[in-house]
């Protein structure tokens, strides 16, 4: 293999001090790892919250003394209050969607690998990149503060004296309440609206606004880097599908986060400045009529539905922000371990774009029960179902890639195949929920969480597991343990199906979501064994993630050493050392001569052709000449 050189660039010298190297680093690789660590921390918090919810659903009224120690107001006597449960729902959703599913796939892996895969020495704006991580981290700290402030009167009072009366005191529950969607008017009224609506809710809104800014800075950087910094020969159609996915994700983030930011500002003004953007006239809340009491000033004419529109205009693209990088990683990994080119590369690129584009026109399907015109509902339904077309293109192309292949079943490959499985299994109910007539009865039942957890939650996470097992050798120069990896995969794979398939059944029976327990609903009694089954599966699945955490940190230092290209892959990141040097290619940027997935090229000396290979040109013609089977 020979590598041609051009434009050796050292824009910033490698830092030497610990702080500039590992903490306030402008190196996209360090920032990527920081994002992944942030996501690993956030997912732990979110996972523990889901465990607490499951425990309460299965065994309501049981006393868990440790809960009382941790949250004296949320669980007096160790028994979880319904308010505590609702704040768990809220914080689980918010933390998982924003700080896990948006940070790890894009900020983490995208940051680390996009510049390397297009042959650049760093992001276009390294300082901005650093800033986007630190802004995101501040957002995470603020959301953790939201729990503390809302649940703790003393800290709430401190906030009140130092930040003004609208931050005074929490409501004494465990955290903000409002779901990750924060629907108005509940979220817009402030403390008067009851538990979970105090100062912590302000911090919840502020945290999301901060997160928006961090994501926007990141998206700007991704797009500019990809457009401006591709190395010689790296035409758009030679980019790995991962890069296409990160690029589309960045475009979605760039156009959808500002809308949430705008909505968040309006919501915050409603909460702290007595405006009435989302608060309608004549509200009667907590025994008070709007305008009848100094604690509840007059509000007129606001539109709660307006918040839903602004939120979901962001919220729907957000689910693609979570899943697209997983799709990219899956395509990349399937091709590598199937030792075959991605089936229909061009179709895959257009499908990614089609999904991204259509994602902007379907937000109304989250609002079918908001009283919208049936004609709008039909339009949103048709557009929603049409996303099935590019999704099916991707699925069939993944299967086409696997078809007839001699697959190497590494852990990364298992997770990538698992991604395809979960995407199909979760996506299929999208066709049901996307139709307004079917969604009306099923809305706010368990089938909705079952659907979106499978298709955007767990599938995205599987994409990230696959990515981590696949790229770990590049990032740290060592393999993750394959034997632990396999145990991790199989238990997680069976576990998540055992958790989420029964939830579909519960939803069809009519079990409503967001309820802390179902002891008062006789018609749901027969489902209790299923509820317990789901909890047991959740406990097992969560337990095996401890194994995963162990694998990550143990392998970082003790894993089997990996070479530069341990998977015999083709793209540019495998063309440099493991881990790559500070400027990725030791001063000389590579030149690209090949498409990204040239596996099993007839006539080539090896079963893969790296993108930088000059020497392994196949004989001229269509590649059939000299074809030896």
């Amino acid at each position, binding site marked *: 293999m020979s590598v041609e050189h051009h434009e050796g660039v050292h824009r910033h010298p490698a830092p030497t001090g610990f702080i500039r190297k590992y903490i306030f680093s402008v190196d996209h690789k360090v920032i990527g790892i920081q994002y992944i660590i942030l996501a690993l921390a956030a997912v732990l918090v979110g996972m523990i919250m889901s465990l607490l919810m499951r425990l309460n659903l299965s065994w309501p009224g049981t006393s868990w003394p440790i809960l009382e120690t941790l949250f004296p107001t949320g669980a007096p006597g160790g028994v979880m209050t319904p308010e505590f449960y609702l704040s768990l729902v809220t914080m689980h959703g918010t933390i998982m969607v924003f700080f896990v599913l948006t940070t790890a796939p894009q900020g983490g892996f995208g940051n680390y690998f996009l510049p390397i895969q297009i042959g650049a020495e760093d992001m276009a704006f390294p300082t901005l990149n650093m800033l986007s991580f630190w802004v995101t981290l501040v957002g995470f700290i603020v959301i953790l503060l939201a729990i503390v402030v809302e649940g703790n009167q003393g800290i709430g009072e401190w906030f009140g004296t130092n930040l003004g009366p609208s931050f005074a005191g929490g409501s004494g529950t465990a955290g903000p309440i409002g779901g990750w969607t924060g629907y108005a008017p509940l979220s817009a009224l402030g403390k008067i609206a009851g538990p979970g609506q105090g100062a912590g809710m302000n911090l919840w809104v502020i945290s999301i606004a901060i997160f928006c800014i961090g994501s926007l800075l990141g998206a700007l950087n991704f797009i500019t880097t990809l457009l401006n910094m591709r190395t010689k020969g790296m*035409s*758009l*159609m030679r980019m790995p599908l991962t890069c296409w996915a990160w690029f589309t994700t960045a475009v979605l983030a760039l156009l959808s986060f*500002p809308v949430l930011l705008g909505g968040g500002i309006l919501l915050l003004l409603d909460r702290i400045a*007595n405006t009435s953007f989302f608060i309608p006239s004549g509200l009667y809340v907590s025994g008070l009529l709007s305008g009848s009491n100094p604690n509840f000033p007059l509000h007129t*004419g606001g*539109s709660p539905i307006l918040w839903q529109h602004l939120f979901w205009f962001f919220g729907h693209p957000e689910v693609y922000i979570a899943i697209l990088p997983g799709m990219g990683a899956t395509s990349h990994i399937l091709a590598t371990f199937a030792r075959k080119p991605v089936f229909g590369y061009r179709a895959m690129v257009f499908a990614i774009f089609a999904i991204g584009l259509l994602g902007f026109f379907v937000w109304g399907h989250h609002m079918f029960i908001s009283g919208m015109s049936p004609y709008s509902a039909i339009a949103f339904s048709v557009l929603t179902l049409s996303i099935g077309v590019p999704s099916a293109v991707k699925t069939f192309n993944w299967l086409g890639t696997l078809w007839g292949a001699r697959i190497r079943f590494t852990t990364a490959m298992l997770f990538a195949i698992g991604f395809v499985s979960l995407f199909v299994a979760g996506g299929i109910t999208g066709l049901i929920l996307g139709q307004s007539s079917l969604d009306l009865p099923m809305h706010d039942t368990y089938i909705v969480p079952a659907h979106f957890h499978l298709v955007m939650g767990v599938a995205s996470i599987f994409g990230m597991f696959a990515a981590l097992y696949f790229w770990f050798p590049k990032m740290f120069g060592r393999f993750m343990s394959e034997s632990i990896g396999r145990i991790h995969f199989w238990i997680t794979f069976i576990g998540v199906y055992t958790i989420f398939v029964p939830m579909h059944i519960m939803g069809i029976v009519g079990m409503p979501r967001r309820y802390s327990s179902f002891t008062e609903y006789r018609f749901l009694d027969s489902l209790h064994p299923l509820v317990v089954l789901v909890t047991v599966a959740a406990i097992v699945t969560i337990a095996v993630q401890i194994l995963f955490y162990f694998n990550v940190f143990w392998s970082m230092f003790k894993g089997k050493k990996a070479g530069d290209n341990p998977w015999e892959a083709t793209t540019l990141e495998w063309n440099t050392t493991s881990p790559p040097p500070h400027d990725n290619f030791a001063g000389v940027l590579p030149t690209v*001569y*090949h498409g990204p997935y040239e596996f099993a090229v007839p006539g080539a000396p090896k079963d893969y052709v790296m993108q930088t290979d000059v020497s392994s040109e196949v004989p001229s013609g269509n590649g*059939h000449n000299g074809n030896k089977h």
Partner: protein
Amino acid sequence: MATMVTSTRPVIQKGAGGSPGMPGPNGNGSKRRDPFRGPDSKGNRYRIGMWVGLASIAMMFTSLSSAYIVRSGSAADWLPLRIPRVMFASTALILLSSVTLEVARRKLKRSFAEAYSRYLLLTGVLGLAFLGSQLVAWRQLAGQGIYLSTHPHSSFFYLLTGAHALHLAGGLLAIGFLYLRSRPKLDKPGLATTRQATADAVSIYWHFMDGLWIYLFLLLFLWR
């Protein structure tokens, strides 16, 4: 595993996917002139980044305007404000500042460093005057007892003009930065391309803020 062939489809195709045969000077598959890293690449980076950033700013104001349109159409409590007179002065000031910035940018292109610096300063002063004039408008309204929460139109008025002023203040910082770098003693050699690119990027931003102000002015006082 030299010839483990699992596909009989020709995987290397003509065109952008990479064509067989000798790679051209730009590598296979590039049909047009080299779109990759050239000497302009670093300068283009600032312009691309600025356009991309403006797309997100535009989306934020789009979301606020759609809220404005929905809110103004749905409510009986909509009491439109009269245009504060001083805002016509604001509009004139910001339009003028766009002109002076454009002159500055062209002076830089022709390497008239002194004139560039002078016109930058003038732009900065006009920008400050715009902010001052907006402040006067807010003070006048507050003097009449019209605050953020008084009624929906005043809420949107303060919000939209405030958000615009905040963005414009960012632009002023950038112009201050350009001005400091434009003085010969602080100029480092070899930064000509970067300097032109940053000047271009800042002027794109400034013109956008100018256009945005005209749009907000029309929205606030002509829509309803």
